[in-house]
């Protein structure tokens, strides 16, 4: 681990490096001394938890306060570098030369330039240009100079190993320089943008326009703030990602639709899976022929790896190759119609989820003392009354944490939506990215990782913080009501 730390620091990954360093120290201190007994039990768990759970969450929350999207990925220095590279303009004629890369006697990168049109040859370094008389040169078959005094050529293989040479601007004339365009060619460029590090102002030397940091992740033109230079950088914009959720109609309207559907989807799934599971548990809640067989068949959907079953269902409802259409002799486009697609999602999730509640309910039914029901029956209650007044309330009380957990799980049931419908159908024509079956989590995934031209990590992070708050408060409310938390007090 010490070695890992060293590697990490060598690669300038200071945050990760320090984490490994702290982890190593902590492991040594805790296991070699008697400083804290509980920590001997905790430490490995805590370390993993911090590295892969807390740290990413922290990062996400942080990102939700930033402008972090396509065009604003880099940090400021890197973005500035890119802006300056883009600010380099070729000269009017677009001149380029044949070159060879080598080194000067003082071990500085240099290029041997052959300006064949003008019959001129020179060696350029970053700082100076030396003309070389033609007589002292060696040429290849195309008339390109390949060797000169005070110039040691570097082989193509060695150049490929280290590209430092290609980042240097070699001197040409006046403000113009030669930039490497390939191992054997260089173009004449001029830097039109100049950056003043002290004032933070970028000036276009050709047009005289000035650009300043607009505090929103871009350089914007003075006097015309909408003209910005790309790329921008990740800039803190505090709560703007959150306020956009409510103020920007392009975000608010799909978000509300997705939000409503997510609640309906999760709620309906809990009700339907619980209902069917309970019905089965009631039906099979007595010794009867074939019960074991039924039970084994009924839990098959739960025993199957869910990724497989979701993909199988997706195939079955395929409009061209799917089994459902061929059995019904129809050609319904199940995943193209919003209502049908939603129906399919609910049906598939019922299939996936009912065995769980069947197992849970049949276990809990046996835990309810029989005396209660017998007493009610003696008092003259019919079976339906017994069920409504005794069995169901008791069951709900026992199972409420599980029902809430199931709601929370389905609220974020990413795999189902992603693998079954991909969130679709989507009206892509008007630039919509939220599909009819998209739930919050899959919608957010699309915002963050979908179309590379429209990715917006900042907004996605803000939505995920919102999801977190919703799910956490529902679960906390549920747990408090079911009094599970009391066991910790």
């Amino acid at each position: 681990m010490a070695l890992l730390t060293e590697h990490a620091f060598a690669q300038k990954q200071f945050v990760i490096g320090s984490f490994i360093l702290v982890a190593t120290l902590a492991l040594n201190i805790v296991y070699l001394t008697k400083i804290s007994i509980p920590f001997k039990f905790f430490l490995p768990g805590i370390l993993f938890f911090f590295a892969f759970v807390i740290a990413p969450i922290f990062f996400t929350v942080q990102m939700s306060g930033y402008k972090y999207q396509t065009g604003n990925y880099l940090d400021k220095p890197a973005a500035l570098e890119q802006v300056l590279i883009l600010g380099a303009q070729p000269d009017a004629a677009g001149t380029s030369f044949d070159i060879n890369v080598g080194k000067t006697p003082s071990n500085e990168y240099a290029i041997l330039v052959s300006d064949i049109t003008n019959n001129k040859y020179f060696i350029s370094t970053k700082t100076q240009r030396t003309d070389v008389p033609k007589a002292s040169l060696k040429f290849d078959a195309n008339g390109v100079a390949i060797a000169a005094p005070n110039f040691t050529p570097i082989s193509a293989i060695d150049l490929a190993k280290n590209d430092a040479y290609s980042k240097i601007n070699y001197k040409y004339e006046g403000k113009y320089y030669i930039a490497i365009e390939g191992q054997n060619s260089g173009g004449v460029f001029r830097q039109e943008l100049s950056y003043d590090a002290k004032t933070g102002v970028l000036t276009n030397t050709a047009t005289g326009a000035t650009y300043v940091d607009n505090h929103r992740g871009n350089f914007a033109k003075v006097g015309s703030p909408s003209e910005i230079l790309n790329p921008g950088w990740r800039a803190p914009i505090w709560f703007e990602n959150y306020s956009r959720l409510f103020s920007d109609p392009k975000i608010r309207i799909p978000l509300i639709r997705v939000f409503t559907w997510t609640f309906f989807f999760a709620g309906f799934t809990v009700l339907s899976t619980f209902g069917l599971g309970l019905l089965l548990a009631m039906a099979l809640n007595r010794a009867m022929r074939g019960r074991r067989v039924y039970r084994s068949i009924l839990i098959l959907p739960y025993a199957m790896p869910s990724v497989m079953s979701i993909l199988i269902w997706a195939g079955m409802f395929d409009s061209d190759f799917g089994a459902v259409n061929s059995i019904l002799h129809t050609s319904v486009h199940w995943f193209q119609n919003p209502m049908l697609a939603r129906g399919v999602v609910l049906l598939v999730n019922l299939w996936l989820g009912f065995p769980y509640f069947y197992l849970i309910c049949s276990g809990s039914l046996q835990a309810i003392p029989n005396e209660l029901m017998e007493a009610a029956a003696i008092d003259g209650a019919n079976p339906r009354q017994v069920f409504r007044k005794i069995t169901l309330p008791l069951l709900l009380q026992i199972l409420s944490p599980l029902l809430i957990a199931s709601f929370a799980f389905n609220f974020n049931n990413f795999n189902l939506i992603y693998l079954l419908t991909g969130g679709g159908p989507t009206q892509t024509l008007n630039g919509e990215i939220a599909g009819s079956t998209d739930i919050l989590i899959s919608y957010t995934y699309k915002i963050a990782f979908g179309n590379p031209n429209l990715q917006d990590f900042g907004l996605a992070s803000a939505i995920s913080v919102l999801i977190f708050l919703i799910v956490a408060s529902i679960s906390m409310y549920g747990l408090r009501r079911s009094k599970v938390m009391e066991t910790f007090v």
Partner: protein
Amino acid sequence: MNKWVRENLWRHAVAIAVCIFSLFPLYLVILSSLKTTGSLQVSSFIPHEISFANYTYLFHSPKAPFLTWFRNSIVIASTVAISSVFIGAASAFAFSRLKFRGKRLGIRLLLLVQMFPAVLAISAVYVIMERVYTFAPKIGLGSQGGLILVYLGGSMGVNIWLLKGFVDSIPAELDEAAKIDGASSVQTYWLIFLPLATPVLAVVCLLSFIGTFNEFILARLFLVEMNGRTIAVGLQQFIGGQYASNWGPFAAGSILASIPIVIIFLSLQRFIVNGLTAGSVKG
């Protein structure tokens, strides 16, 4: 007879109806795995021809190193399951039995953090592992080692939570007795607690195994090399990727991959169900 009908007929009717519902897709997938055409289309419920072409394809085609994928899945899932239970059990024991400052806070934090949508933390995990790759390629992005680490971290919360439920249900008298006899906490853990808890640890281990086996998104993000993929990612490529709608081999592959899981699950269902309820109900 009349009484039997009244008492039992609806029970069988419900059970049979739902059994058909639950078997329907599975039956279709078996049928189409035995066909030669690459679709899930079914003209009749009785197969006219039985062909094992799809199965032989899986074992012989270089485009689909099925056995390698399967082995990857097993290796990754069992490494994660065993190590996470090993690490998690220690933390769960401490949460359940030891007294220390910040215990309540720790448990609440653990519970709360579980509710953060893990899918969204993926971008952050990706960035972290990308950076790790620059100095330790073997545990960085694109490696199975890295994936295992990420899984371990992600499963820690759930497993500690689940295991704590179990530990709470093991009577504390035993380790109190050990304490009176002069055993330290560490000794109690190794000599009393672990042997007692082995069956429940096995269940959590199994659940964790199945969970990891099922994981798809991270695996797809991490494992780009054909031979490094897990079975879920590999099979998804059949129908989602460049071999679009290659349903025959997919059907065969998903059956083969599911069989071991289904067998484990069915034979241990009693324990698994107990595990599912104990962890959540008791808290």
